[in-house]
């Protein structure tokens, strides 16, 4: 530990430089992460609105429909099923369709059917499950018609798949770049001290003894780099939030993940670079 800290003092410039390099490569990764997190949240918000409406045949006894509503709610895909009676449908129409208020007021008979509005659980808001649930609803004898935005759900599906693929590829690319940059930085630090390593080995230092300060140092640099990167990301997030659009930041676990990622690369990078030197003298 003492050795590890001493090295920071002996080569403050190089140490600061490597922490900065690590911080920026993790920052770039972090920025991408922010985009991914926000995009996912936006998509989730859109998916929330996936809804299937089953219109009930006029004259169906309310008890039948209420029972069915309970059955539907028990479907594994279903988050909630809400019965909208003829009266409340009319009330809602009056409220929402202001342009037709007068027209609606003059009606003598309510033309609107009762319906059951079904919302799906988060994992099931895609075309496959929407279709399955819709088919099941259609099978109910009192159901007149089932509606959902089929095109819309399918588009959402495509968008989600695209986002996932892009996220994976770009994210992996950024992660690889970060690994390479951090690995190179750490390797430089080890290379700078290769003479010292050779001498240590000549005077009888065990591999563990040689390795330990480097591992500690690598991990420490990764950790510091990660913390700085989160700081930079937070600053960027604050700016974006203030001047561009409302967005959300990483959860604590995600932030910790980035710091941990830096620490692990620092550690593994040191392990590999020192190992290379330990094979010789």
């Amino acid at each position, binding site marked *: 530990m003492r050795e590890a800290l001493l090295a920071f003092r002996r080569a403050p410039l190089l140490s600061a430089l490597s922490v900065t390099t690590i911080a920026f490569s993790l920052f770039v990764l972090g920025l991408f992460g922010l985009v991914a997190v926000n995009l996912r949240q936006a998509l989730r918000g859109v998916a929330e609105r996936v809804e299937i409406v089953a219109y009930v045949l006029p004259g169906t006894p309310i008890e039948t429909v209420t029972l069915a509503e309970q059955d539907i709610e028990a479907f594994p895909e279903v988050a909630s099923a809400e019965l909208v009676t003829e009266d409340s449908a009319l009330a809602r129409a009056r409220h929402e369709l202001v342009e037709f208020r007068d027209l609606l007021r003059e009606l003598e008979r309510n033309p609107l059917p009762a319906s059951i509005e079904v919302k799906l659980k988060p994992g099931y808001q895609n075309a496959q499950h929407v279709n399955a649930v819709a088919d099941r609803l259609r099978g109910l004898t009192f159901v007149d018609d089932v509606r959902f935005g089929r095109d819309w759900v399918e588009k959402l599906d495509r968008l989600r798949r695209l986002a996932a693929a892009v996220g994976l590829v770009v994210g992996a690319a950024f992660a690889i770049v970060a690994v390479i940059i951090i690995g190179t930085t750490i390797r430089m630090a080890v290379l700078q001290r290769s*003479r010292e390593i050779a*001498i*240590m080995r*000549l*005077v*009888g230092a*065990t*591999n563990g003894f040689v390795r330990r300060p480097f591992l500690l140092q690598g991990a420490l640099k990764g950790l510091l780099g990660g913390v700085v990167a989160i700081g930079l990301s937070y600053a960027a997030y604050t700016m974006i939030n203030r001047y561009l659009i409302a967005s959300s930041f990483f959860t604590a676990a995600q932030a910790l993940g980035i710091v941990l990622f830096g620490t692990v690369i620092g550690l593994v990078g040191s392990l590999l670079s020192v190992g290379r030197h330990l094979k010789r*003298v």
Partner: protein
Amino acid sequence: MIKLTNVFKTYAKGGLALKDVSFHIAKGEFAFLTGHSGAGKSTVLKLVYADEQPTSGEVRVSGYLVTELAPRDVPHLRRRLGIVFQDFRLLEDRTAEENVAFALEVTGARRSTIPARVMRVLTQVGLAAKASAYPRELSGGEQQRVAIARALVNEPQVLLADEPTGNLDERATRGVFQLLRDINASGTAVVMATHDLEMVRSAPYRVIELQEGAVVYDSAVDEPAAESGGQPA
């Protein structure tokens, strides 16, 4: 103490380095390893401190069978050896004192005992006054003394010196050689590789001469009489 038996060494890219080398250096002995550069002197020393393994043959050092030594035991062998090089191999960013202490820290010596032990060897090599000087502030001879102090601080049974005077002027050479003789006089075996024949002739020590990787002359074998006194031929 050091025993090589029928040692052959072939380098992957560069042909035969050692051909059937055998010799035995006893406890407390002083032996020169001579020969032109490339004759295999450094290779012999590398085999002794387990930086290289022979292609065939056996190397025994201070109770260790080096040829069958597990990598994890190499550090323990080296702690019983002191090694000195032509280029000193000091750490430039540490003082003389710190360079010597380094060899103790590495072995996990008790921290409280280190300063006293360091000062003792620095005194022994005549550099107590320059303990806090950095290598760049020292002359070549002084730097080599620091290196020797570092080699001695673990109280080795053998001191290996690979051309220790190769980079030094005549005066410094004499001083360093005298220091090695003193060290030997106090009981430490010394194996010194050199091509300085004048120095070799100036002392009544054993001489092992290598030529193209083979021992062509060993005063202990070829002229046992010369060992016990007079000047070797």
